[in-house]
Each structure stands twice: as C-alpha cells, then as structure tokens.
C-alpha cells in the first residue's frame, strides 16, 4: 500500500503545483476587477502550491518509474482529490458547505455542468471564470495536459493516457511520443476554443461571457454565467455559433487534427463516428421540431426547430447549455434527449456517455448475431467504418456497457432509497454519469442541484467521476487484484 501510494503521490504533487498555477487566471481577474473573491483565490493558490511542494519534497525518495497500476492510481487520485482543491475558493467565498463546493468543482472538472449555485449573474467574475476554467481544463483531461507540458513527469507508456482518454480503442497515437500527441490534442482544443470565443464575441456577447461560454462549449461543460443559461441572451446567432462548436467538440479531436493537417474535410468522411453523430442529431432535431409543432408546444415550425436544435444538440452531446425549460415539453422529447446523451458523443471528444463508437460496435455485433441465426456457418468480421474491430475490443465494449449501466441503475436505486422522487433520481443520475448537466424534475433546467440533500449530492459527485473516467478506472480500485502484491 505504502509502496503503491507514495510514488504516485510524488507525481500527483507535481500535478497539484501545476494546478495551483492555473488558479492565477481567476486571481488576475479578481485583481483586475477588484472583486471580493480575491483573497479566496490568493489563499487557495498559495495553499495548493505549498501543499503540493511539501508533498513533493516528502515523497521524493520514493520516486520511481510508474507501472500500469500506478498510472490508474494516479488518474483516480487526481480526479478524486483535485475537486476538493478546486472547490476550496468556492467554499471559502460562497455561503455553501464543503459538499456543495466539491460537487460544483467536480461538475466543472468532469464537464458535467450541473450547478448548486443560483444567482450566477451576481457572482464575482473571478468565481465564474474559475468555474468555466475548471470545465475547460477537465475537458481534454488534466493528466493529458500534465503529460503534454511536463515531460519529466516520469510517466512512460500509454497507461495514464488510456485511463483518462475516453473511448474503447486507445492504441492509435497521432505521433510516436505520447507527450507530443497530448500536445497536439491540446493545441487543436485551444485553437477551436479561441475560434469559438471570437465567433461568440462577433455574435454579440461581451468578452467575459464569450470566454466563459467558449470554455463551456468546447469542453461540453455546460456551465453558464446566467441562471437562464443561453436563454438569457435570446439571440439566434449566439445559439447557432454554440450549436456548431458543440457539435465540433463532440467529434474526435484526433479527426480534427487530421483534417487540419490535411487541409481538407476528408478525415471527417472517414470517421464513422462523426457521420453517425451528425446523422442522429439531424434526424432528432427535425423529428423533435415536428413533434413539438404538432403537440402545440410552439406556435410554428421555425420557432420549434430553433429551440429543438439548440437544446437537443446541447443535451445530446452532454454539454447542458439550454435556452428553454425543455422539461415542460411533452415527456417524449426530454426523455429522447436524455437517451441521446447516453450515446451520442464521440470517443476522443470532450463529451460523456458510452460514446458513439461503442454504440456502433454493439449494434454491429447484434446484427452479426442475428445474421448468424440465419446462416450458422457465416464468417463475418465486425467492421466499423471499413476497419475491422477485433473480438477482444467487442468483449471489452460489452463489459464496459454492462458496468456502465449497472452503475447507473445502482446509483438510481441509492437515490430512490434516500427519498428522491423517481423522475429526479433517474434524470439526475443519468445526467451526472453522462456528464450532461441538468436533469428533469427537481433538478430540471429551470432549477438546480442545490435542492438535493448532502448525501444525494455526494452520490451525484461520485456518478460524475465514474462517468468521466469511464467506470473502469474507478472500479478497478475496488477490486482485490489491484491491491494484491
């Protein structure tokens, strides 16, 4: 136990020190805007850095190269411990307890976007920037960032990258070096964010809102600086810009990189996931718009299409920004959106859920089984987008989906047992584990997670972490094999 934890703690200490540096952004904002949260950030940044440095010094003699199991440990430790650190300024400044601060920070880092806070527009800018920055950092992965900028992290091989990057097939690298791959992905991510911020500014936001919502859109976080989210602006251009960038963020960033390096869109046509995502979104948006018109939620089709498009895309790709209280739509619509949030986002994107590639693999596998009934002697490899998927991957996907839905169901039962009503329990857990954000019922778009009890809030925090690290990384810590010598 000691031998496992201390070398990992040594690397984690370095991650903490880097994380302390990111606190400078809200700190500078606070100085600039003379806002009252300044001290909270000064204290947090100093405390984080000093704690990190102390941990680093005390564990120095345990430094060694990390093994596979250490890599898993490091990722899990980082994701469980950093929200506590990140939540500190919120807890220190706002009148909320530690449970809520941890939830808020987790919701940021895991890019969920559910909040316990209300009156967002009255918060100091530094606090709002910090919430959005957390989303942005968590989007592409904290450890991936650390690998990109800290070559001396002493982390070889793929273990860490794998534990944090979403998707079933993580062996394909863009470049031979993991550090370089991480750097490229972060460059693409940062570039798209910059483009989004510019577009939002051009569409009429002020700079601060543009930056915050740019962070939200690309990380598919879902935090907003207003209680009414994007509904506050009531602006078609802003909705269009956000819709486009949220769809881009739901596509594999490796595909974006390929497209950019080939200066063409061919890469998107070769990406089976991207095509499926676009197809599903297109059909859903138009279908729901028609549905909402027929059921009379909106007077005419164009209005229905506008609201359906923004909200459906945002929930489906697990962002969680919204313009309408869609929980008031006839039940079919919000339920369909919640269903989409489970499957739509692509592997290697910043979205959550089980990812489109797994959906494709499973549906092809199901199709193969059906065909096998008719042709018992048939030999057919499983292909997605022209490339063959090994049976090993299919098994891994099956195990993953089983664990994912079992975790979901179990957590829903826990929430029910704690006294939550069915719709709230169901939608809160699904929204949290998919990192989507708002649920339905008590935690619907017009309300927030502040109404939950402390216990229920912790369960939601756990669900977000499980979802972000794709279940395995967290659950493996609970297996006896992991701790056995």
């Amino acid at each position, binding site marked *: 136990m000691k031998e496992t934890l201390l070398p990992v703690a040594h690397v984690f200490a370095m991650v903490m020190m880097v994380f302390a540096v990111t606190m400078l952004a809200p700190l500078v904002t606070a100085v600039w805007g003379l806002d009252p949260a300044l001290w909270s950030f000064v204290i947090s940044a100093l405390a984080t850095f000093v704690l990190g440095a102390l941990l680093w010094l005390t564990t120095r003699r345990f430094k060694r190269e990390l093994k596979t199991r250490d890599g898993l440990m490091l990722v899990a430790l980082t994701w469980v411990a950093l929200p506590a650190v990140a939540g500190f300024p919120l807890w220190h400044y706002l009148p909320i307890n530690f449970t809520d601060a941890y939830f808020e920070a987790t919701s940021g880092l895991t890019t969920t976007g559910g909040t316990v806070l209300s009156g967002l527009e009255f918060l100091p800018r530094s606090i709002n920037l910090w919430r959005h920055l957390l989303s942005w950092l968590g989007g592409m992965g904290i450890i991936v960032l650390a690998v990109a900028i800290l070559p001396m992290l002493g982390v070889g*091989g*793929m*273990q860490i990258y794998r534990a944090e990057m979403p998707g079933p097939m993580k062996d394909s690298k863009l470049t031979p070096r993991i550090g370089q791959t991480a750097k490229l992905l972060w460059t693409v991510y940062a570039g798209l964010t910059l483009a989004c911020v510019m577009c939002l500014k051009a569409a009429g936001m002020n700079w601060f809102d543009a930056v915050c919502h740019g962070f939200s859109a690309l990380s598919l976080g879902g935090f907003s600086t207003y209680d009414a989210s994007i509904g506050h602006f009531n602006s078609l251009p802003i909705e269009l810009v956000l819709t486009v960038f949220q769809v881009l963020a739901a596509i594999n960033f490796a595909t974006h990189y390929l497209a950019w390096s080939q200066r063409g869109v061919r890469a998107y046509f070769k990406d089976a996931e991207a095509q499926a995502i676009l197809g599903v979104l297109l059909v859903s948006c138009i279908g729901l718009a028609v549905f909402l018109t027929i059921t009379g939620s909106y007077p005419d089709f164009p209005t229905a299409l506008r609201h359906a498009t923004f909200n459906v895309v945002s929930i489906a790709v697990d962002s969680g920004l919204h313009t309408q209280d869609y929980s008031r739509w006839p039940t079919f619509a919000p339920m369909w959106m919640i269903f989409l949030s489970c499957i739509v986002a692509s592997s290697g994107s910043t979205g959550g859920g089980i990812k489109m590639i797994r959906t494709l693999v499973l549906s092809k596998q199901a199709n193969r089984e059906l065909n096998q009934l008719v042709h018992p002697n048939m030999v057919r490899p499983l292909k997605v987008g022209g490339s063959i998927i090994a049976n090993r991957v299919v098994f891994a996907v099956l195990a993953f989906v089983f664990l994912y839905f079992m975790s979901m169901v179990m957590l829903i039962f826990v929430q029910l047992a704690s006294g939550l009503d069915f719709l709230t329990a169901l939608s809160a857990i699904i929204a949290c584990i998919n990192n989507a954000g708002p649920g339905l019922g008590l935690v619907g778009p017009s309300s927030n997670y502040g109404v939950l009890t402390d216990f229920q809030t912790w369960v939601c925090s756990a669900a977000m972490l499980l979802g972000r690290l794709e279940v395995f990384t967290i659950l493996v810590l609970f297996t006896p094999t992991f701790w056995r010598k």
Partner: protein
Amino acid sequence: MKIIILGAGQVGRTAAYHLSREEANDVTVVDSNEEVLRDLQDRLDIRTVNGNAASPRILEAAGIAGTDVLVALTNSDEVNMLACHIAWTLYRTPKKIARVRSADYTERERLFGENAIAVDVWVSPEQLVTEYVARLIRYPGALQVLDFADGRVRLVGIRALQGGPLVGQALSTLREHVPSADARVAAIYRAGKSIKPEGTTIVEDGDEVFFLAARKDIRVVMKELRREEAPARRVVIAGGGNIGFRLASELEDKNQVKLIERDGRRARRVSELLKSTTVLHGDAADEELLLEENIDSADVFAALTNSEEANILSAMLAKRLGAHKVMALINKPSYAELIESGSIDVAISPQIVTIGSLLAHVRRGDVVRVHSLRRGAAEALEVVVHGDADSSKVIGRRIEDIVLPQGTTLGAVVRGEDVIIAHHDTTVQPDDHLILFLTDRRHVEAVEKLFQGSASFL
C-alpha cells in the same frame, strides 16, 4: 530524430527500448505480429504499426515520409534490403540501416549504394557477436573487449583479482608498474556500483575495471589486474549455427577447435565447410560426450546455440566437468545478470553487442562508434571533433579545461595513426577521435551537445 524500426524481434525490441529512452527520438515499430506490438506499446512510449515491413502502404502508415533513420531488423535479409530500397526510392530517407546476415550479400560491396540496393549501413548481428567472442578468447581474463578507431584502441573490461600487482594499490601507481605502456582507467564498478576512478582510488579484489589502451599495451595492463592466464589453445564450441560456425572458422587456424552440433545434417554441412575443426555430432549437454572429448582440458567452452536455456545448462555442466572458462550466449538481460554472478564466466548478449552499432548512427555529432555496456546503463563513444577553436567547445583546449557531464571520462585521443592516452594536459586538435566513457548513459545528450558546437561543419 524520427526513427522507424522494422521487425520486433530480439534485436528490434532492444533497439526500440534503447532508442525510445532518449527524449529526442520518435520511434515507430513495424511488425506483422500484433501481440508483440501491443506488449511493446504497453511498455514503451512508441507508436506501432501492424503489417508487412516491406509494403509501401505500411511504411507510409508508419510515417516514412519525414523519417530520418530507417532500421530494418526483420528476420529476412531480403525484406530488410527491399524495405530500405523502397524507402530511398519513394521517400529519399536519409539513413537506412539493414540487418543483412548472409555473407552472400555482404561480401559483394558493389551491391549496396545509391544506384544499387539503397542500404547505407548493413549490420550482421551474427558477425558482430562472432568478432566479440573471438576477441574475448584472444584475451583470456577479459569480460569485454571493444574496438575503437578500427581496433587501434580497445576498451577492456576485466575483473581485478588478488595476485595482480595493481590490486590493493592506488591507480596512480600504474605508470610506475608499467612504464612502457600507457592506459587510462575509464570506470570502476564495485559491487555493481560505479566509483569515480581517480589517481588515489585503490583497486580492490573483485572490482570490475574498464580501461582504455592501445592494442599493443593491453596484455601488459591486464597482467597488472590479475595473474596472466595462458592464451587459450583448446576451444570447444557448442552449436554449429551461424555464430558457432563463423567462430570456428575464425579460430581454427590458431587454435584447436572442437564444435558440437546436435543436428546430423547441419554437422555434416559444417564439417564440409571447415578445415581443421573437429566437428562432433551430439548433444552439448551430454556428460559422456563432453568427458570423452576431454572437456577438462578445454581452455574455453562457448555455448552458442539458439536456445539460451540450453546454453546456460551446457555451460554450467562444462564448468563442473573442468572446462577452464565458459561462456554462454544469452538473450534475456535478466538471465545474463543472474548467470554472471554464478558459475558461468561470461554471458554474451547479442542485442547489447548489436545495439552499439545502431546507436552510432542515430547520435548527433560525428559519432563513429558506440558500445553499449552493462546492459545498456553505460556507454562508450568514439566522437570525431570538427571545426576550430572558435566554433567548437573542445578544440584547442586542454582536457582538464573541458567540462564533461557527470560520470563521463575522456579516455583516449586518436590522432591519425597515433593513440594518445588522455592526460590532463593533452590538447584536443581538429579531427581528433575522442574516446569517452559514460557511466550513466542518460548524460549522452549533454555529451552530444558538447561536441555539436560545430554542427555547421558536419
């Protein structure tokens, strides 16, 4: 440097390991066995591509465009040569190294070149290992004998034993002991740890000492560190494969060589090709056969079959039966470590012997020779310095003024035909070959930088 390695066999894997450890290298490995690749990618920070190494499509997927060095190490000479040729024809890859075993190809020099088969450097692990073993047999008592500057300077690793005049004395007394010869102790390992050799360092019984000396002086210096052993006369080789056969044909003129081969047909074939070697058909781990062939009077027993387990067992058996010195060819580094502390005198690791010749080609600066030592932890380099006193950090300076990274010793300078053993007042001149010993190869980049000051002259 962007490097593609074709073939993830023993040598390919070791090369990938050594090359990817250096921060500056981007390594991609191509092989047709997916299992091996997955395992490799789990352990090393490299990219892997699954497929036929000689296919242009696969080479493209591995990023051949823009690659600096292509290292073809598959099992097949033909695949290696073809892959290099394709890389040159389609992508003008600057440096192509191929493993070519068959002397049928390598002895025809005109076969390779820009207008012929585009292989810049060919390596034959079997040939390298054979030479290595032959040198060890020529210097009884040595653990390692490595050539620099075409053999004019040699680095010798030797275990100091009670009875050598220098043992128990300070290193500075070496000159008084042997005024005629000059040598420089580059490193001393005591109980597995390196200690910095200085004039006052006292050599102890059991130390592993590495020294550099001109070829003619080696024997005298060795005599200082352990009692001289009679030159090997009777050599028994187990295994008539590529290495065993080559070694026999190299030694048979001066030594009395016996070669044991298990396979009847191979034994017959080997016997046809060799002149004076006694070829025996049988099992090298057969006690009766060994006794019958007077193993107790053998000076050297070298187990060189394909199976390392068999090598270990037959070498141990030979040692017990009275062979004076036994060597075994061992692939797994962990085995080698295990064995050298036991009853086998020398463990020969083909990958380590081969990797040095590959490393020389990926080093920046004009590095002509690299030998990997102590299972890759240490390295010995031969570097040519170019430029003048202004452009280079070393030229025109006395050796005591050159700031070398920690654990690095400058052992010798080769100037034209002359070998100058480095002393504090030796001055470095343009086009000198410097022989350096690094006890910690992690400092190799610092060393490269030191000699790269004159990059424009390369």
